[in-house]
C-alpha cells in the first residue's frame, strides 16, 4: 500500500481537479441557458422562412434562377462542417467529425469530388492533422454566433453553386434535441429541395416578380440554415460540456472517496505499527 503522504498528495490533486470540473460544469450550465434562449428565439424565423420558401416553388422558376439550379448529376460537392473551438465537451466534436468523414467517404465512393469547409478549431485540427485538404476554415465564431458569421461561411459556397463550380452543399452540424442529446446530422442546403406540398406562387400577388423575389429570399434562406446550425451547435456544445463535466465531477468524487479510505487505512496501519513497536520496546525492557 502506498504511503500515507503519497495518498494525501493524490487526494489534494483530485480535489483540485474536481474543483475545476465543477466550475466548468457551472459555467457550461449558465452558457447553455443563454445559448438555448438564443436557439429558441431563432426558431420562429427559421420555421417561417422555410415555410415561405416552400410556397415559392413555381414551375419554370428553376430555369430562371441560378440558386434553384438542379444539377442532373453531382460532380463536385462541398461539405461545411461546424465544430466547436474548445474541447472538454465529451464526444461532441468527435461525433461531428465522424459524421463529416462518413459523408465525405460516401460522396467520394459515389465518384463525387469533394471539398471541405470547416468552422471551429476542433474540426480544423483533426483534418489538418490527418492531412486532408481543407478548402476554407474559420475559427473566429464564438459562443454567440450572429447571422453575419453565417454569411461569412455560406457566401463563398453560394457563389460557387451559382457559378456552377459546386453541384451540392452539405451542412454537418449538431441537432439540439435536448441538453443530453445532440446528434450530428447532415443537411443538404443546396440544391434547394422542393417540398411535395408546395403551393404555387401564382396564388399570391407577388412583388417584385417571382424570379427576383426568390433571388432575394434564397440568400436569406441559406444564411438562416447556417445560422441555425451555428446556434444549435453552440447550445449543443454547452450541453455536451455540462454533461461531460458533471460526470467528471462525479468520477472525481468517487476517486476521492476511495483515496480517503486508503489514506485512513494507511494512517491507521502506521499508528498500529507504532503502538506495536512501543509495546514491543517496553516488553523488551522488562
Amino acid at each position: 500500500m502506498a504511503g500515507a503522504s503519497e495518498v494525501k498528495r493524490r487526494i489534494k490533486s483530485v480535489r483540485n481537479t474536481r474543483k475545476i470540473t465543477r466550475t466548468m460544469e457551472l459555467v457550461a450550465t449558465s452558457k447553455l441557458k443563454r445559448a438555448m434562449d438564443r436557439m429558441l428565439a431563432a426558431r420562429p424565423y427559421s420555421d417561417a422562412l422555410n415555410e415561405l420558401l416552400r410556397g415559392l416553388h413555381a414551375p419554370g422558376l428553376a430555369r430562371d434562377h441560378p440558386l434553384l439550379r438542379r444539377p442532373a448529376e453531382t460532380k463536385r460537392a462541398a461539405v461545411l462542417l461546424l465544430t466547436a473551438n474548445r474541447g472538454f465537451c465529451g464526444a461532441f466534436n468527435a461525433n461531428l467529425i465522424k459524421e463529416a468523414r462518413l459523408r465525405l467517404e460516401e460522396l467520394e465512393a459515389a465518384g463525387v469530388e469533394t471539398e471541405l469547409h470547416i468552422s471551429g478549431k476542433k474540426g480544423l485540427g483533426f483534418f489538418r492533422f490527418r492531412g486532408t485538404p481543407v478548402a476554407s476554415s474559420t475559427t473566429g465564431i464564438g459562443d454567440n454566433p450572429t447571422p453575419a458569421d453565417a454569411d461569412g461561411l455560406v457566401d463563398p459556397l453560394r457563389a460557387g453553386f451559382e457559378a456552377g463550380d459546386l453541384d451540392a452543399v452539405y451542412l454537418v452540424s449538431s441537432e439540439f434535441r435536448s441538453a443530453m442529446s445532440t446528434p450530428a446530422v447532415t443537411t443538404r442546403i443546396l440544391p434547394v429541395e422542393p417540398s411535395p406540398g408546395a403551393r404555387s406562387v401564382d396564388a399570391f400577388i407577388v412583388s417584385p416578380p417571382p424570379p427576383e423575389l426568390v433571388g432575394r429570399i434564397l440568400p436569406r434562406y441559406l444564411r438562416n440554415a447556417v445560422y441555425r446550425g451555428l446556434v444549435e451547435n453552440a447550445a449543443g456544445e454547452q450541453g455536451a460540456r455540462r454533461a461531460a463535466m458533471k460526470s467528471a465531477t462525479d468520477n472525481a468524487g468517487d476517486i476521492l472517496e476511495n483515496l480517503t479510505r486508503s489514506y485512513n487505512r494507511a494512517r491507521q496501519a502506521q499508528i498500529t505499527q507504532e503502538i506495536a513497536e512501543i509495546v514491543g520496546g517496553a516488553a523488551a525492557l522488562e
Partner: protein
Amino acid sequence: MQLRVVTPAQIVFEGTARSLVAPAWDGWVGVLPGHAPFLTLMGEGPMTVETESGDRQSFEIGGGVMKVESNTVTVLADHVATG
C-alpha cells in the same frame, strides 16, 4: 388580423392588428384585414402598426420579406429596431 414580426434573433411582435403600413421595396404598402394573398420584398423604413386596442406601434425595418395569407401577416425582417 394576426401579425407576427420576427427577425433571425427574436420575435419582435406577435398579436392582433387592425392595420399596418409597411415599407415595401418599391414604396409603402398598407394592409387591412382580408387582404389578398400577398408576398413582397421589404425595404428600409418605419412600419406602423395599429394594434387591437388602437395603439400605434412603430418598428424600424431593415429589409426582409412580408407574407400576407388568410388574414395572417408574417414579417420576416432582417433586423428591427423598436421605436
